[in-house]
């Protein structure tokens, strides 16, 4: 069964500093990996996704993530954060099943960017 573990529940960081949000997953089949962002009082929106090919994936707002199959990780990074990046970030894994497909989300990491 698929599962997602986000290793940090909260990450405080100063503006313009780099940040890494960690995500580990488990799955029995080929996986599709996602990072979503949720701004306060809003629904989730896609940051980036890994389907196949290059293990380094670039997304919106300067974020990127690296797929590491041997470590079953999909960590999210940004070289220089802004106040506006303050939000909750969710890692997700999706896989096919007989009824269609299921997407399982991690518990989320709350990123606080301080001035």
């Amino acid at each position: 069964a698929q599962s997602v573990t986000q290793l940090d529940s909260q990450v405080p960081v100063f503006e313009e500093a780099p940040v890494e949000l960690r995500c580990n997953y488990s799955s029995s089949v080929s996986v599709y990996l996602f990072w979503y962002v949720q701004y306060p009082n809003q629904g989730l929106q896609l940051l980036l996704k890994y389907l196949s090919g290059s293990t380094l994936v670039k997304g919106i707002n300067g974020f990127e993530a690296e797929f590491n199959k041997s470590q079953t990780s999909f960590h999210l990074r940004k070289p220089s954060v802004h106040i506006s990046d303050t939000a909750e970030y969710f890692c997700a894994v999706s896989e096919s099943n007989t009824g269609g497909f299921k997407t399982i989300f991690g518990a989320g990491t709350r990123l606080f960017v301080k001035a």
Partner: protein
Amino acid sequence: NAGVTQTPKFQVLKTGQSMTLQCAQDMNHEYMSWYRQDPGMGLRLIHYSVGAGITDQGEVPNGYNVSRLNKREFSLRLESTAPSQTSVYFCASSYHAGGPGNEQFFGPGTRLTVL
């Protein structure tokens, strides 16, 4: 193009009351799903549907029923609610072709409190 819409935005119920959460999308998506979001637990899949009349259970289906009468709408029914169902409920949709690699589009959420 409204995307994914949900009604109501807020609801307060007493234990034992029932209600239906409505979701509609105008993107011609086949796949629709319902999640609940609780602090520290991320999003958990309740039920999903790959087309009209076709639904399946997610991670936490107990206490919830769904109905997909057409491609556009997917409703979530809570019968005899309990305080444990206090949560924020999100509806999401995506294309089914291509399966698990597709981005999900989320509605703004329904905040439900059961007293």
